[in-house]
């Protein structure tokens, strides 16, 4: 995605999460761009939408998303192959070169579909070379040919990142996805292998781990088809050492890896080395698997690490986390995460943007704790994808454990509109604990009679000074009232 597209995406995301109208100032400060750019972006988004205006504007109120159209337009992401952005074009060229590495490709053939000038090609090469540096790979240009050279492991890592950037969420979408230039038979074969693993182990491999294992196997097959078997030197050396260390309870995983690689060997008619079994085994043990029996025993490291996250986060978020089920849940995530870190396996988090925006403060705190964790346990740095996953665990803890807001409902008599309102609010707002329903004349007694009250929802205007937040609503409890109450709840949560 180009930076403009990313910004547009962020704008839409922000509007979708903040129902009602947002002003251009708000949007500008959220996205760290000027108001002028906001206007221009909204114009572009609306003009580019086939559904009509996605973003509605109203004088004095700002902008809001037409939710139905937004959802509609998100469904139609299929696109013509001819209009790739420069970044996408470079991505595809790089992917092709990676898959054929170390073979050299003819430049004019490589760029045949894109109709661009030599200068643009030259520029592309510079940028591709730059992004290959992070994988320790080199782009080699020799007269009319170009190739990528480097270690096999690094090449596969680069391809993995590239594939995962496509944001595939459902592994079954791969079957019919025309945007990806995948070999259809290979795709079906691998999906079948993954199913076999799941069956054998009586587990389900969930998103995003299924995608991760898929890409791993797909890359292996593609590499062998295009350039024959390439050995991963680093992993080959480790093989024997690791084989001894496979724990008793992981035998089943190892056997699943073994038979999958055996199947692939037959499928490709190439004898695959043991290191590939180990590699796949590492992938499997790096995936969180859902099975009927959740693992309840963990190594010391996993236990300590999980506890460290829980302690540090509860300190930072100012909540108490003392639940066995939360510990188990998190530990079941941390165990494979630890394996990912140790074996250099990266799982793309396609929700990362959304997580960072929605749970910004939790995310920032998770990053802090993660830094501490990698230092304490001498682990490789915990990347943003992993921090994003962890953020979700804590966001969920907060959302399910958030203490309800002690609320009083008030009307003139305490038996009229307030009772009516109580029923309506009870149904819609589980965040509120309705302590009592009172008459207006009892207002002054609230602090004494109901200590800890945080909110008064009233159908009559409060004329006197009360040190408690209050919200005037109509007895009809309209949509507008609901929205205002929702905002009030947010305000109270944020103030805690």
């Amino acid at each position: 995605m180009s930076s403009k597209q990313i910004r547009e995406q962020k704008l839409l995301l922000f509007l979708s999460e903040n129902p009602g109208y947002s002003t251009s100032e708000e949007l500008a400060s959220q996205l760290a761009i000027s108001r002028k750019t906001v206007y221009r972006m909204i114009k572009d988004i609306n003009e580019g939408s086939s559904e009509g205006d996605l973003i509605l504007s109203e004088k004095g109120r700002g902008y809001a998303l037409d939710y139905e159209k937004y959802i509609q337009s998100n469904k139609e992401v299929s696109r013509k192959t001819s209009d790739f952005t420069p970044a996408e074009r470079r991505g595809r060229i790089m992917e092709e070169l990676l898959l054929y590495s170390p073979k050299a490709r003819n430049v004019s053939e490589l760029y045949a579909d894109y109709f661009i000038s030599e200068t643009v090609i030259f520029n592309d090469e510079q940028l591709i070379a730059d992004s290959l540096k992070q994988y320790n790979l080199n782009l080699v240009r020799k007269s009319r040919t170009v190739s990528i050279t480097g270690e096999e492991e690094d090449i596969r890592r680069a391809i993995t990142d590239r594939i995962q950037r496509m944001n595939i969420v459902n592994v079954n979408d791969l079957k019919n996805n025309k945007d990806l230039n995948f070999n259809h038979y290979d795709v079906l074969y691998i999906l079948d292998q993954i199913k076999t693993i799941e069956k054998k182990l009586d587990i389900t491999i969930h998103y995003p781990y299924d995608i991760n294992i898929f890409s791993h196997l797909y890359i292996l097959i593609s590499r062998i088809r295009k350039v024959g078997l390439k050995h991963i030197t680093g992993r080959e050396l480790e093989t024997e050492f690791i084989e001894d260390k496979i724990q008793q309870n992981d035998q089943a995983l190892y056997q699943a890896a073994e038979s999958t690689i055996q199947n692939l060997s037959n499928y490709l008619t190439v004898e695959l080395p043991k290191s590939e079994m180990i590699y796949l085994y590492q992938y499997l043990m790096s995936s969180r698997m859902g099975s009927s029996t959740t693992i309840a025993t963990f190594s010391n490291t996993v236990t300590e690490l999980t506890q460290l996250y829980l302690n540090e986060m509860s300190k930072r978020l100012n909540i108490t986390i003392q639940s066995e089920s939360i510990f188990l849940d998190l530990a079941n995530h941390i165990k494979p995460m630890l394996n990912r870190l140790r074996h250099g396996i990266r799982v793309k988090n396609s929700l990362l943007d959304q997580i960072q925006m929605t749970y910004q403060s939790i995310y920032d705190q998770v990053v802090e704790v993660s830094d501490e964790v990698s230092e304490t346990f001498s682990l490789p740095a915990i990347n943003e994808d992993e921090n994003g996953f962890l953020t979700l665990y804590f966001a969920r803890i907060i959302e399910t454990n958030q203490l309800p807001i002690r609320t009083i409902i008030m009307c003139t008599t305490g038996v009229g509109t307030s009772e009516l309102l109580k029923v309506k609010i009870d149904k819609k707002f589980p965040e509120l604990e309705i302590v009592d329903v009172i008459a207006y004349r009892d207002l002054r007694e609230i602090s004494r009679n109901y200590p800890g009250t945080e909110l008064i929802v009233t159908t009559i205007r409060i004329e006197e000074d009360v040190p408690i937040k209050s919200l005037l609503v109509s007895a009809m409890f309209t949509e507008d009232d609901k929205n205002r109450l929702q905002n009030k709840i947010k305000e109270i949560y944020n103030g805690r």
Partner: protein
Amino acid sequence: MDANRFIVKLDVPIHSRAELFQYVSDTLMDAEQLDLAGLMAEREENGSVEIAEEIVLPHVESGVLDKSQVFIVRPEKKITWDEQIKQVRLVIMILLRKEETDDVKREISQFTRKLADEAFLEYLMETDQPEI
């Protein structure tokens, strides 16, 4: 339970809010006649009494009342309530005596809770049975 706690009157020939108050005070209330309009006025300045389309729930607690009662009055034709509420088909009026017992309060709030149920409101709008 006091038989006169809840009083339902259907298709009453009244044409305005003032007539409604007059009617309730003169013919329905067990206690002596009262200036209901004056009693209600202050309440309504501070918040709308509309609880659903064409339904209002004026309610007041006052020391001048010596009995708590609920009146459900359906005018023959829609009446105008105030500047904001132009069309009213059903008036549910709650008069609460000051220092009322908890039992009576409970009885009344059980009734108001039912008003959150659309089906119950619909029943009140349509029924020809003067029972609740």
